[in-house]
């Protein structure tokens, strides 16, 4: 074998080895969840803050039916169509048999029960900043909801995005590091930041993404093309959103804009959840949005 060929093979092996190591799915340690007891009552408002039902309720579900987290909604994107899975307490088709550690690992690290990477259509890059106690409380609340035996549907994603391992590379490139808005924030703004950046995962739709689907962090909440290709998701930084804090909070409660037009599209679904938040949480979200750097 010529020496240069040996070198090429060695380099290729090294490359494969590096790829393998850097794409190993992340984990939540047993220590991080040890002794945590979920409180379903505390979990209820957190569940609405995290917007779980917005995606995991069955397609077209309204009212009480939104509490049946049977999955099945479709989310088309440039990478393929993602189908929300069943996360109801059903032990076979839902997440009823999961341990808290597995739930925390899925929500904050984007790793499924089988150890494979999850697609970032699931907003783990936001939930990554969620407190483990809150995850435990949300899970405890979800377990009080009706079980449903609808099997989860596979995602409709083609090559190369169907190689789960490559998502490790995505995470390496795009996983967030800390808060998007740092600096001096009031207690209320910090609460708002937690609700917007972590649980509410507002940035998942309102922040533009690059060609590989990573956030363009400098344009945090600066508006983006809709992933399904229809219309635009608005800029909600002070560079475009000139509503008062009271107006923002009122919109999140009732869906009415200051001109008394109503929320539409996905945002009308989101408002069905934010309407169930305690009023001080909606006010905190509004206070935080005023503190976000303006994107013009």
């Amino acid at each position, binding site marked *: 074998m010529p020496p240069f060929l040996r070198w090429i093979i060695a380099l290729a092996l090294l490359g494969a080895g590096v790829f393998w190591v850097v794409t190993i799915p992340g984990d939540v340690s047993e220590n991080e969840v040890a002794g945590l007891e979920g409180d379903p009552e505390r979990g209820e408002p957190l569940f609405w803050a995290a917007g779980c039902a917005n995606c995991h309720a069955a397609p077209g579900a309204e009212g009480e039916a939104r509490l049946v987290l049977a999955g099945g909604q479709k989310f088309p994107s440039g990478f393929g169509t993602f189908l929300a899975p069943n996360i109801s307490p059903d032990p076979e088709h839902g997440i009823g048999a999961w341990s808290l550690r597995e739930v925390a690992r899925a929500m904050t690290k984007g790793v499924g029960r089988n150890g494979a990477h999850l697609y970032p259509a699931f907003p783990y890059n936001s939930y990554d900043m969620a407190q483990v106690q809150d995850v435990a409380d949300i899970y405890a609340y979800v377990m009080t909801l009706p079980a449903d035996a609808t099997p989860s549907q596979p995602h409709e994603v083609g090559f190369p995005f169907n190689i789960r391992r490559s998502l490790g590379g995505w995470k390496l490139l795009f996983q967030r590091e800390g808060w998007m808005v740092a600096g001096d924030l009031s207690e209320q703004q910090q609460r708002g930041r937690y609700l917007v950046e972590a649980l509410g995962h507002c940035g998942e739709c309102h922040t533009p993404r690059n060609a590989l689907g990573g956030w363009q962090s400098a344009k945090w909440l600066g508006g983006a093309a809709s992933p399904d290709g229809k219309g635009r998701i608005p800029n909600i930084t002070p560079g475009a959103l000139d509503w008062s804090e009271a107006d923002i909070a009122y919109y999140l409660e009732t*869906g009415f804009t200051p001109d008394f037009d*109503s*929320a539409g599209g996905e945002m*009308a679904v989101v408002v069905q959840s934010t309407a169930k938040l305690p009023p001080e949480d909606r006010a905190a979200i509004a206070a935080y949005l005023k503190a976000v750097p303006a994107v013009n």
Partner: protein
Amino acid sequence: MLKNASRASLFAIAFLGAGAAFAATHAVEVQESREAIMKEMGKSLGVLGKMAKGQLDYDAATATAAATALKDAAEKAHDPALWPEGTDTMSIDETRAMPDIWDNMADFEAKGAALIEASIAMEAAAAEGLQPMQAAMGNLGGSCGGCHKVYRAPEE
């Protein structure tokens, strides 16, 4: 004979053309009526909403009148004559009414009925007092969103 045939076909073409032109004008007229009704709703909602938000002093008579006007507008919008085929985003530029409406007409009508119901509930709440009125705004907003969520195209 030939002459007659060509005359007939000319006539037919003219007739069809006029028909198409009529349909297009009619579609735009229908769309304009719908938009005018939506604006009426917005006006009434503005009165109710500003009172609910404390930007306008609550007054039972004014609030109830606004709720009644809203209900009237919601009933007008519920008229099937305002929603003929060929008045969706694929057919005319001016509208945001998605073609899905015509694939799910029963659901669309149910959502329209929900708005009428929410307006009737608002009429009662608005007469009762500021707090009940504030509480009824959420349900009203939800019924607006019910349609706008699935049947209104996003702004360009």
